[in-house]
């Protein structure tokens, strides 16, 4: 056995001072760290602070407590925007998920020209929401768009004027947004389907499961993580939606199709209501965090337990 004699003075001195190799990783990361601390978290706090002040055209630092939030939730236009977000968000997410899953399964049946079809389904994701909005504005326009097309084709009583109908205009947003994002959900699920262990499917077939049953009982349940990822991404797109509204409806008719992002922009920059604008931004942040924090938490924890 070793003898553990006490080593008096055998400890060599750690060189004190600056070792470039040790510090280089930290130095290199520093710019991004500054960016994150200032431009993400700093600004977030700044906006939070402004939401508790009576700032109007210029930031002021006279604190008024929760007054701006009270005004916000008494503001009819904000409540319309929130309601719209509820309708738009839930329909957009549900339809995208449904379409995405179905198309992914359809495309998974050894389809000829799968590549071409996939490319067609996914290209809207490469386009700006502004372009999407412009295109659909033309398509949904009752005087020149789909309504006219159908009437000219002989359906004289065909009516499709959602774009100018305050009660229906939010569904126009849903149509355009689904058109843009559902192909992406399809791609996510298709990648997930291709990642399913082939032996699992063979085993299910040997157990006598039909193709339908195999999907319902074996394959789709194993895609739960993809499902959650897609859900989070779609929710995130919905809450941040701004460009699409600007281009497709500009919030109209009136403010019937406003979403919170448009409300925030209008109140902060056009209406000189910085305090209330900031409060609305904070509510949006709250919505996103409510979805994101549990998700990131489970993701990071999962990653740790893998190691």
């Amino acid at each position, binding site marked *: *056995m*070793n*003898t*553990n004699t006490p*080593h008096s003075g*055998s*400890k*060599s*001195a*750690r*060189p004190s001072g600056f*070792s470039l*190799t040790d510090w280089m990783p930290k130095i290199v990361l520093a710019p991004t760290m500054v960016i994150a601390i200032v431009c993400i978290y700093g600004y977030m706090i700044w906006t939070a602070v402004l939401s508790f002040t009576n700032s109007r055209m210029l930031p002021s630092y006279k604190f008024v407590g929760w007054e701006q939030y009270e005004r916000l939730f008494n503001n009819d236009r904000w409540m319309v925007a929130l309601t719209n977000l509820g309708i738009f968000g839930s329909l957009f997410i549900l339809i995208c998920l449904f379409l995405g899953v179905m198309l992914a399964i359809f495309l998974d049946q050894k389809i000829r020209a799968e590549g071409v079809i996939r490319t067609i389904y996914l290209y809207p994701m490469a386009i700006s929401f502004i372009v999407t909005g412009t295109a659909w504005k033309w398509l949904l326009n009752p005087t020149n768009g789909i309504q006219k097309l159908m009437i000219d084709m002989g359906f004289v009583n065909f009516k499709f004027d959602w774009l100018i109908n305050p009660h229906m205009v939010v569904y126009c947003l849903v149509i355009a947004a689904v058109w843009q994002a559902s192909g992406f959900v399809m791609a996510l699920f298709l990648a997930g389907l291709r990642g399913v262990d082939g032996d699992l499917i063979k085993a299910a077939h040997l157990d006598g499961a039909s193709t339908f049953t195999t999907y319902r009982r074996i394959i789709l349940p194993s895609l739960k993580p993809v499902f959650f990822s897609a859900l989070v991404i779609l929710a995130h797109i919905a809450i941040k939606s701004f460009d699409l509204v600007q281009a497709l409806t500009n919030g109209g008719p009136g403010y019937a199709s406003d979403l919170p992002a448009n409300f925030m922009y209008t109140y902060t920059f056009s209406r000189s209501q910085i305090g209330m604008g900031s409060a609305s931004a904070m509510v949006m942040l709250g919505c996103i965090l409510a979805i994101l924090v549990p998700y990131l938490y489970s993701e990071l924890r999962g990653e740790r337990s893998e190691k």
Partner: protein
Amino acid sequence: MANLTIDNVKKSYGKTEILKGINIAIEAGEFLILVGPSGCGKSTLMNSIAGLEDVTEGRILIADKDVTYTSPKDRDIAMVFQSYALYPNMTVAQNISFGLEMRKVPKEERDVEIQRVAELLQISHLLDRKPAQLSGGQRQRVAMGRALARRPQLYLFDEPLSNLDAKLRVEMRTEIKKLHKKLGTTIVYVTHDQIEAMTLADRIAVMKDGEVQQLGTPQEIYDNPANLFVAGFMGSPAMNFIPSKIVEQNGVPMLELNASETTALPFPNPDSLKAYVGETVLLGLRPEMITEPQPHKEGQAFVVTTGVEVEVTEPMGADTMILTRINDAEINCRSNPAYPAKPGDVINMMFDTSKAVVFDAKSGRRLDV
């Protein structure tokens, strides 16, 4: 070539102590193997020697020079990794010469060195290939070539063979041994494979829980394990541990054995057991010490033959392992394949205790030292 001294090295992450004061001294040209189960701290020790991890306390000396806080590149060390860690974008030749290039060795000298190493390892025909185009064994050779090219003072091998298949592993083992004999380099080699440790090492350091359990030549460690852990870890199949009561016969302590009949085994060093009469200890007996009766051993001092019941037989070709149960412990015996043994039979086996060791049943401490 240089000697290496590891002087009371400790390493902890927060409150967890990974290394609890390691002392090892290696002569120049010596082949030392660090062996132990995963999590024993052997890889951490290796990284500390290389300078890839800081130690919390203690010193590391290479060629009598304190390098505890020297950066890895200035320690003049080369390392062969388990994953080989070949640079994927470089050819074999570039991989081998990268270290020389970093040390600003002129191109002509580098080329000479590449040729020398390539010939030594028989990889001359692979020099222009990328690592992805090589087989596992070839990658392993390149990884060694990269280490050899710099002619460092000290070589570190971190489980270099564990990614190879069994046959290749044996081949490369021999190759490494030959290279060591030829070049006389100082090597520290980490493995969890105790056969590799036995076959390659000049000396072995068996580690567990951040401590060196025993440091010695392979034979010393095999014959004279310092404690129960070392005894159980080194050797395959593992040493048998038979819980056995010490009984006194004619004033001499003996080890009681309950097989088909009750008998007692003599012990080469009976005086050390005097204090334990009446207690139960663990008798350590390697499988090759329990065999079919061998006429030439008959009548020797520490040999007893008794009947045991066969539970399972495992033919291995050269030998057949016979599993039996003695004193309620499962026991491995090594017998000649020609010796008839069927499960359920009671057969005579010969117990040779001339190399037996005994341990305290609770602490695992060796008792007969």
